[in-house]
């Protein structure tokens, strides 16, 4: 890959976009300088997106691919990924069968190889099962230019409309359990539950299956089976895909299966 800055002014064949600059910074300093120069009129190219399209009327396209944002690092029991890591790399990094299953439901191989985590997270909704798994693992996100990490939220998604993820941190990525129900084995589910055992004996649970639905809660071993909570969470989640009644009952079943799996995993690890 060329190590020099690439910067061109677009040929004026699109009269609605008279001038558009493309730049591929090779250092963070260079990025910063471009950010200062173009301020609000930047569109970031953060790897592959669902649909390659320039939105709005930016003055510059800043391509982030030379900034090592496609790296995966393991340290202190956590995994840190750059925002240009794609879904396939995420699956390879986590080595979790349940995450692999979620990624497989999310997309076929080509799309996994193409879609960056920045663009995935930006477009995710309550039916995005990889996001569900990331949420269950209490994943944290560092947005470009920010100093503090943050959890997944509508605010995070909104921020990504004109920004990018610099770093994704999965603390203590152990014991993920995921279960879902769709119309076919690889269909987007109408009910999905992911649960992850955390280092402090909590189990963090994320559930979804409807576009507008995001819910997370904790339970503790021996205290609560989460059944009442999850039924409550789904009590009003009805749309054209499934009724609330169905989702309540099936979410409870899936949660129970996830907890059994976590328990089995934990038991087998102790045995080892």
């Amino acid at each position, binding site marked *: 890959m060329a190590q020099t800055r690439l910067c061109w002014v*677009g040929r004026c064949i699109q009269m609605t976009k008279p001038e558009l600059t493309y730049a591929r910074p090779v250092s963070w300093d260079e990025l910063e300088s471009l950010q200062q120069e173009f301020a609000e009129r930047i569109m970031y190219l953060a790897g592959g997106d669902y649909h390659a399209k320039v939105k709005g009327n930016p003055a510059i396209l800043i391509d982030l691919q030379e900034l090592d944002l496609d790296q995966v690092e393991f340290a202190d029991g956590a995994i840190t990924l750059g925002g240009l890591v794609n879904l396939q790399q995420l699956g390879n990094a986590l080595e979790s069968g349940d995450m692999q299953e979620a990624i497989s439901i999310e997309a076929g*191989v*080509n799309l996994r190889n193409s879609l960056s985590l920045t663009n995935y997270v930006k477009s995710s909704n309550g039916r995005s099962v990889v996001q569900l798994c990331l949420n269950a693992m209490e994943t944290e996100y560092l947005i470009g230019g920010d100093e503090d990490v943050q959890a997944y939220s509508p605010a995070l998604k909104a921020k990504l409309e004109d920004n990018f993820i610099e770093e994704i941190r999965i603390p203590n990525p152990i014991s993920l359990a995921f279960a879902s129900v*769709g119309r*076919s084995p690889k269909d987007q589910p109408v009910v999905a539950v992911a649960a992850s055992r955390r280092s402090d004996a909590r189990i963090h649970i994320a559930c979804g299956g409807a576009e507008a639905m995001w819910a997370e809660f904790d339970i503790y071993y021996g205290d609560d089976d989460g059944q009442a909570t999850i039924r409550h969470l789904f009590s009003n989640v009805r749309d054209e895909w499934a009724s609330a009644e169905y989702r309540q009952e099936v979410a409870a079943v899936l949660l129970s299966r996830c907890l059994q799996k976590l328990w089995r995993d934990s038991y087998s690890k102790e045995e080892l």
Partner: protein
Amino acid sequence: MKLYLLINDKTYETECHPTESLLEVLRRLGLLSVKSGGCVRGECGACTVLMDGEPVNACMFLAVQAQGHSLETLEQFGQHPEQGWKKTEGFDPIQKAFIESGSIQCGYCTPAMILAAKALLRQNPDPSESEVREALSGVLCRCTAYVKPVQAVLKAAADIRQNKKTSPESELNAQAYEPEMVAVDAIPETEIIGKSEVKVDAAKLAQGKPAFTADLQLPGTLIAKVLRSPYAHARIVSIDTSKAKALPGVAAVMTWEDLPRVVYSTAGQSDPIPGPLDMFSLDNKVRFVGDRVAFVAAETAEIAEKALELIDVIYEPLPVIVDPRDSMKEGAVRIHDEAEYVNFAESNPLINLAAKIRIDIGDVEKGFAEADRIFEQEYVVPKVHQAHIEPHVALTYWDEDDRLVIRTSTQVPFHVRRQMAPVLGLPIKRIRVIKPRIGGGFGNKQEVLIEDVAAHLTIATGRPVLYEMTREEEFIGSRSRHPMRIRMKTGVKLDGTMTANQMTVLSDTGAYGCHALTVTGNTGQKSMGLYIGDGEYRKHPNIRFYADIVYTNTPPAGAYRGYGVPQGYWPLDRHLENIARSLGMDPIEFRLKNAIRPGEFQPFSTAWNEGREPVPEVIHTVGLEQAVAEGRKAIGWDEKFGNEAWHAIPGKPHLRRGIGVATVMQGSAIPNLDMGGASIKINDDGSFNLLVGATDLGTGSDTILGQIAAETLGVKLEDIIVTSSDTDTTPFDKGAYASSTTYISGTAVLKAAKEVAQKIRQRAAQIFEAKGEKVEPSDVVLRDRQAIAPSGSQISMAQIALDSLHWQNQEQIMASASHVSPNSPPPFAAQFATVLVDIETGQVKVEELIMAVDSGVIINPVTASGQIEGGLAQALGYGVCEEMRYDANGQPRERDLVNYHIFRADEMPEIRSIFVQTYEETGPYGAKAVAEIPLDGAAPAIGNAVLDACGANVLDNPLTPERIWQAMKHNLESKPNGQDQRF
């Protein structure tokens, strides 16, 4: 900006705008193996390229992002081995395996699949089947069910490991991939018929050659876009196009005010169209979300899209009808109030009635009175989409003779020409329609749907215009399968004899009445016609089929493979299953007891013929019993059905297995209507040009027709150069629908080939005589490219050609023929399914689909089995996940291939096809149809298997988890003994 792309080890320097996608730039650079599926979420994978060795979607990157990466497209892998004096290394082993295995049907996704396989085999030379399926999971295919592509990749891997050299094209051999075949009747010995010849278009498609409509790039081509209605029902009060027209780069903007008001039907059917004329290119009223409002042509797609945004439309919203049960209610809003509306038969726009069918065979009420038990139930089947991977696409331009050329992805080129002429204000003789390769159609391209858009804009601008629908437009603005609400009422004796059978249908044609009458007629004719009763009822069956086909404010339905028949078999076969179980009879025995047998009338042929005079038809070949026997054996019915140990999964009490069957019948063409023509001429080297109007939409019909000609002329398939579907150069053919091509067009080819063969025999006899050997022409045998006298003397076909063209009594040996048949001999099939049901969630996983089919003599086993497999995959989707829904305002839920899920390679059940060959005297070399019947019985077989697994009697298709769960819940709440008591 200047862009440098490293593609196939070569650096391309090109001007590029930063907003251009990699897909756009690759195609602009002439790398046309990279296809567009029109999707916006990367879901189809047709645009796969290898980036740094990994398969990615070219639509998901801007071209500028690809600079500095190594790109590979199919253009760099293998090529035709014999190129005149130049020899190449030939095909890549993966290409070769795809060609030989029959993996290439329409071929639109083939480049993507081969690249995905290439990436896999570089990393893993010995993959398992599941690894191959995983590797292909990013490329959607609607034709193959992935069966043969997976076989091909495994075979290629083995060949690569063994370092096998590729063969020249003439040595390609598909016979290693042949399906199971069982002969019921005596099948005559043949040389070419019955052999798995490689498809005549496979080599070019395996190389990703520019064979499709959008692959022709003419200078100065404008891009068309269509403004579509956001309202389900509204009048257009005003349209202001001034801002759009003022946008630089816009060449034309057209609204209803700019076009002559010509009413027509988009249904691509023979004249007269058997349905109402109720559509305009553009109208002052919109009737569904997605209906056309305006056309734009511009220099680029981006400018055209921007222009659409600048068109100001003021709508006056009208009341909306989404539920067909509301269409004919008193006071319902009238969807078609235009003065130009032309009725057909009993259509009545005053009450939103597009068509009406009333068929009574025998005395149904008497039959009910004679029954011991009467079973009644209502069933619902959904609207579903054809989901061909190549969107609708048309390119129009004026040729040098001022004739309008329409290059289009159509199944009906001759109907396009006839039906477009009045709409465009051109005589038929000034229109030429060319059908290149089509990336799947499945009925949706039996619609004259988009040609007018491009053509109007070409007329307006004088320039070539390309209109390619997006995936969203396919869902909201093309056609679909008619959804229906169907009530069954059946009388039976306690011994299982059916005394009367009644089907009452409410069919939803959507906003326009295309195919309304004929699709729904088929629903009854080919499903209800299978079961006539037993004993005396065989001679005098009692069948009633009533249907109302109504307008709603939803996208129009139309033709979809199966053409109404799958809608009939869901209720009919689910109903029969329930009756058999209620009577305590074996479900297979009950079906066969009442099914039609050889020598009996197709009952509907005595009463109905799509609005024309009925012509009673006796059915001669019925291989249903043999199909049932073979399918039963293959799926292990006797070991599984009723065996509790098989149904239970040890250690997993929440899972239950089930097994189900459905028996089905289709047709072979529309009798006394469908006509196809063929023309054959000999060339100097003893090869032949075969010209057919028939339309190969990926089914392999060009190959089949070539085989029929080759067999009859005693030459190899490679000696037949097949040219199809050009209204200027090929004879008329009604097009690819109604399972008619092999049966009708094939017989036309057979007739023409026989005439040519006779002329060759006469010429050979003259040559033999000149050499002193007296031979009767009728004694000359044509075989192995030779004319052979009874003595064994031979004259080569090339000699005969030279003799006739150059040496003496010169003449062009040629013939033309056409065929129309009074018969429509049905294929029959038994379809079996096994499923695994999660009884806690209702999730169903289909584990096996097996189909044993009587399609007469199979002309090409590999291509025929490909039809079965691909059809089963579509039927599987119909059974479990495919459905198009609308909210109360008519807004569609499904707009892409994510929400509208079609099966991927890595989630398919085991699929198997078995041919039970009868010999149909009226068909070419004994053949009947094969393409549509797989769609008919898989869904009810799965439904019956779910019932068998867990007692869930699901009445509404598809079998979604919630429907199964609700049905199980219903059982628990109301039927403690587990018996279905809803009758």
